[in-house]
């Protein structure tokens, strides 16, 4: 199926998300859409998938102009889309989930229908038992089931929105392989991403979007520098940073901490961090990262063990010495219906005057938004109207603007583009230089190894390590993540 988008434009109020974009998508080819947060990648694909309607421009399928008013229409035309969030129903088996999305499923489910669905799944992912419940699958397996679901709905063009953002490295590699195979089998594949490694690993062609326009279209998918400079508009320079030497006594000491929360637990977690040290906590998601963040931030009292910051115990959830960047910022760290201005001052709500007035705080807040590049930098805009990456920037602007003694950051880079992740790293390093202890719970081992002083691995609630980064062995860390015995 030959898809061509010509002169598509889409505006949201004063923001132009897509500005006169023309693009051809060919069968048998993996096309990567690369760009920063808010570059318009997802918007463009939502136009194609019928979730949004273009303000102007035309979509042609095999030379014939089509109108795609809804996802259902898109599916009927053979266009399928995978979103970042999984749509599988956890309580149902893999087979049931596959049948939910499929076309032409008879009312009475015969063994043959089931077998057909399972056969399709086996072609794509031989390792997945179709009888398992969807909630027991790993993120990578879920992704493959989703993919199978979209394919069994008859999709010949598959759009994937940031598919590797939740995947561990081996799972991402498997997904890349599958996408290559799909392309070889004649499907068209569109990969929305802001990761260069996705592009290099599996794209035939890359289209770089910046500020709603196509700035580069090339088949040189491994040309890192060209892609980065097209994405950002200017090449990034690396800035060498010095760090204060670690001196005793420890700034943060965590001793034999046990905690439980939902289905997560921590067992006997102990470590010490000196002034100015960054601890990188690596691990596969779902091994207690969120809980560790909450406990260190003082939001959950541990069942056993003690945590001391500057040799004093934490004072509970509202400890002013701690900056905390939680996972899922929109749910956990901002009030979506309140303006950015109020969100920036949310932690000090008890110090606000009874009769609210924010006038004196506007200028400072405006500077913060600009310093952290929150887009659009409109103080009165409700936080929920920001894109995911910008919500994260808003949280960083609030949490990293003070002088905390401890910074606990749980997946702080989630949703950030290259420039914003750099700024995040710079800010964290600056705080470390000032003397703060930083616990950086992350998913990207490379990033942790590049910037942390010590690295540890969280696996099933147990902390392995920490070891100084200089002595860290990738393979050993990898085996810790996989749960090998000590």
């Amino acid at each position, binding site marked *: 199926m030959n898809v061509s988008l010509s002169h598509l434009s889409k505006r949201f109020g004063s923001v132009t998300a897509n500005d006169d974009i023309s693009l051809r998508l060919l069968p048998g080819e993996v096309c990567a859409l690369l760009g920063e947060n808010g570059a318009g990648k997802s918007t463009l694909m939502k136009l194609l998938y019928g979730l949004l309607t273009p303000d102007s421009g035309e979509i042609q399928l095999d030379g014939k102009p089509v109108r795609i008013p809804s996802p*259902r229409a898109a599916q009927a035309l053979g266009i399928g889309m995978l*979103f970042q*969030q999984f749509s599988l129903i956890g309580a149902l088996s893999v087979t049931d989930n596959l049948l939910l999305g499929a076309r032409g499923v008879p009312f009475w489910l015969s063994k043959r229908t089931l077998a057909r669905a399972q056969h399709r799944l086996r072609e794509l992912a031989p390792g997945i038992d179709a009888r398992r419940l969807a909630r027991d699958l790993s993120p990578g397996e879920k992704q493959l089931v989703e993919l199978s679901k979209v394919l069994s709905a008859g999709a010949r063009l598959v759009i994937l929105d940031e598919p590797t953002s939740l995947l561990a490295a081996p799972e991402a590699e498997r997904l890349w392989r599958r996408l290559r195979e799909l392309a070889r089998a004649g499907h068209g594949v569109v990969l929305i991403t802001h990761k260069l490694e996705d592009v290099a690993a599996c794209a035939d062609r890359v289209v770089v979007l910046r500020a709603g326009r196509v700035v580069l279209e090339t088949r040189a998918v491994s040309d890192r520098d060209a892609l980065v400079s097209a994405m950002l508009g200017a090449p990034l320079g690396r800035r060498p940073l010095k760090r204060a030497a670690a001196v005793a006594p420890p700034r943060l000491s965590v001793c034999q901490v046990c905690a439980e929360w939902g289905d997560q637990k921590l067992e006997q977690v102990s470590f010490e961090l000196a002034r100015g040290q960054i601890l990188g906590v690596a691990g596969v998601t779902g091994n207690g990262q969120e809980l560790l963040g909450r406990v260190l931030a003082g939001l959950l009292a541990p069942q056993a063990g003690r945590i001391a910051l500057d040799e004093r115990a934490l004072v509970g959830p*509202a400890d002013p010495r701690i900056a905390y960047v939680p996972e899922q910022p929109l749910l956990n760290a901002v009030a979506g219906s*309140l303006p950015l201005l*109020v969100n920036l001052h*949310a932690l000090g709500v008890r110090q606000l005057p009874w009769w609210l007035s924010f006038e004196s705080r506007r200028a400072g807040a405006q500077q913060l938004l600009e310093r952290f590049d929150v887009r659009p930098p409109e103080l*009165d805009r409700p936080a929920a*109207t920001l*894109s995911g990456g910008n919500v994260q920037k808003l949280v960083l602007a609030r949490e990293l603007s003070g002088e905390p003694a401890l910074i606990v950051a749980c997946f702080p880079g989630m949703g950030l583009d290259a420039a914003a992740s750099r700024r995040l790293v710079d800010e964290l390093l600056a705080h470390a230089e000032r003397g703060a202890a930083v616990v950086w719970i992350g998913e990207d081992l490379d990033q942790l190894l590049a910037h942390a002083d010590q690295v540890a691995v969280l696996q099933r609630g147990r902390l392995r390590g920490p070891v100084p980064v200089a002595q860290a062995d990738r393979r050993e860390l990898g085996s810790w993540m996989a749960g090998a015995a000590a």
Partner: protein
Amino acid sequence: MDGGGRGVTALPLQLSDSAQRPASPGVLAAAWRSSFRPGLRALLSAALLFVASASLFFLVLGRAPLPLFLALWDGSFGSGFALSETLVKASPVLLCALATALPAALGLISVGAEGQLGMGAIAGSAFVLLAGEGLGLATLPLMLLAGASGGAAYAALAGFLRARLRVNETISTLLLNYLPPLLIEYLVYGPWKDPASVGWPATISFPDAARPSTYFDTRLHAGLLIGLVLVAIFHVVATRTRFGLCLRLLRDSPLLAERAGLSFRNWVLWILLLGGAAAGIAGILEVSVIEGRLQSGVGTGAGYAGFLVAFLARGRPLRLLPLALLVSGLSAAGDNLQMSADLPSSVVYVLQGLLFAAALIAERRRSVPAFAAEVGGWTALGRPCSAGSCPRRSAARRLCSGRCSVRR
């Protein structure tokens, strides 16, 4: 941004609507304005749907709709007397709407106004019967205080269950509604029964000192004024003060609120308690002004009508006023329907139900294609919103239509 803030709600009991579009300057007040869009189209379609479904209902009863609508109008707003009766009915409804709207500002769904009203009636009556003699002018305020504390204490029970044991407040308040009417029955048939009355189960008539005065030769009483003042206070406090900001923080992100030093547990308790006090005042006023004694069936339906009003108001305090008038107009017209149109007065409950359903449908429906896509597409089977930052999805772990206006 198509879709907007309105109508993406999947659960009918969501009492307030969150922001989706940029606000104008003015911080909190602006946030309130923008977060609850006026939705004129929804209002109109609700009205239309209501008239259509009510007509259908009348036709099923074998009656011509138009005369019945006229009878409804006559019985609610058609004459000075009808209007006064509507206003009399509006005062408990307004107070009970407050008892629902206040917890809703915190994201709680309390349906307990009915029970809190009953407990207020019992507590206020207990004060009058046990200590009401010889207090003179102090009687009335103390009686109101007793009624308020009765409602508050009863609501605090649900608040305690929610705060400490995480019992869902909707379930607990709903179930707690069954107790007060039975307790009243027990009291008026048993210990508090007026010995002078032969068959009629009721307490003795309240002394004059415990009967608030009525005005303009009607049954209008101070309850309406109390309700108006409380609504005005609620509006100002919620939109202009730190208290309102705290409510919004707690509703939007409990974790953030906790880090700001606000304790969700305490707030749940106190907000439910305040709401219960409003319903309790409604209860004792119904007893003391309207009946003059405690008897069974006091204030029946006002609690649920209040819930209906609070729901329709979508969390905007000032909207409680016209809506309370509308809903109590419907109840007031019940008597007229009975007398002039020979229909049982319980017809008004059917009409209230239709109004509620009409509002829900109008609220839910957006553009016809979006609606059709949602019903027809596999969105109905649970495809979550495509936007990673969709507040609807994450905030309540609810499925969003995927057409909400959150942009990536």
